[in-house]
């Protein structure tokens, strides 16, 4: 049984209708987030220093494709996360990072295949290397906090997708930055420890969505009816 008549609720809501600042376009918000994050990542790289062979790596197309795909995954995931908080936008936008994620994964897979052909099973030697996870977390933490704060302004219509995409954006950026200062080039190691860390953290982000993004319903103080139903 409702505590308030719906018509009274409408009157109370109208009375509470202050002017609101419209949400900016998702692409614009993604650009703003990217700018803030890139500044942080640049500062991070300045502190830890880039890998000594970076200039050589910058002329390697495979390296450029891999890093570029990670960066584009990050950008598209951020845009998709912002789109997911805007009701009425097409569903396909949430899958926008998938092609770039696929290219990134394919580049790592191609690297594994190439190293298998060059060195046989020895080329696919896997060691425990938690540096990737730690570094991605360290680089991604500030972008992650920034994007989580930004997506809270949207509507929580798809909370799990939104936070999953947001964390994917932050960790993919962290993974791209990692390639600029960490001298690990074994594709299998990158696939398991770098791409795996991104997938794991994005998965956690996805699962945490319902707890991070909740409906925040108005606490009406109008003199009609009693309290509104809770969320």
């Amino acid at each position: 049984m409702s505590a308030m008549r719906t018509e009274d609720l409408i009157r109370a809501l109208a009375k509470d209708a202050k002017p609101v600042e419209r949400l900016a376009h998702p692409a614009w918000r993604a650009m703003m987030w990217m700018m803030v994050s890139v500044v942080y990542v640049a500062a991070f790289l300045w502190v830890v220093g880039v890998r000594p062979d970076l200039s050589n790596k910058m002329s390697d197309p495979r390296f450029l494709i891999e890093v570029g795909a990670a960066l584009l995954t990050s950008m598209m995931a951020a845009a998709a996360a912002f789109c997911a908080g805007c009701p009425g936008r097409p569903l396909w936008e949430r899958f926008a990072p998938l092609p770039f994620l696929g290219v990134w994964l394919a580049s790592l897979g191609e690297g594994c295949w190439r190293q298998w052909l060059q060195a046989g099973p020895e080329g696919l030697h896997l060691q425990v290397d938690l540096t990737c996870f730690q570094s991605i977390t360290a680089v991604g933490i500030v972008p992650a906090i920034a994007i989580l704060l930004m997506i809270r302004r949207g509507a929580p219509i798809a909370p799990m997708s939104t936070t999953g995409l947001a964390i994917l954006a932050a960790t993919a950026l962290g993974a791209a930055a990692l390639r600029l200062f960490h001298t690990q080039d074994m594709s299998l190691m990158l696939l398991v420890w770098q791409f795996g860390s991104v997938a794991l953290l994005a998965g956690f982000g996805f699962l945490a969505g319902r707890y991070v993004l909740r409906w925040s319903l108005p606490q009406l103080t109008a003199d009609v009816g009693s309290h509104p139903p809770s969320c």
Partner: protein
Amino acid sequence: MSSSNSSDDKVAREARWQELMRAAQDGDDAAYSRLLSELLPALRRMVRYRWRNYEGAEDIVQDILMSLHSVRHTYDPGRPFMPWLVTISSRRIADAARRASSRSAYETTVETMPETFAGDDAKNEQDTSDDQEAIRVALSGLPEGQRQVIELMKIQGLSLQEASAHTGKSVASLKVTVHRAIKAMRQALERKT
């Protein structure tokens, strides 16, 4: 001809709601009140389509209205209004369904409520009658002296002193007799169950 009119009505309504929402975002409470009032029948239809015969349907309608209010800044006036409305409404209806489902997972429908307390007040007539009959049988199985003491002290409610005066036995002797009688009755009841 009629479908064309209906289509025109929808287009006009969409344009009107877009304009009202844009005004509401700018703080026009009259436009906002009109918009929500116009949305109300549509929302009720939408909720009742999903929640047939559900007594809490109006609560969900109110929940949707407050949700629209809390995220009204997410509406982009350059985009259609209906998809924005339907997305939020569907989301809130699904949330309500999930809440109802999780509540019902902890509920069990029973025809007869189980007994929850041992006291006579909580028992039904049949249980009370069964208990009295068992006690009567256990009492009748006691030796004459013990049965007399139990009848005096536990049924008639006499004190030790009164029962002592009535039977001529000492208080200490009555205590022992009561203890033995109750122990014998308990054993008799346990054997019965």
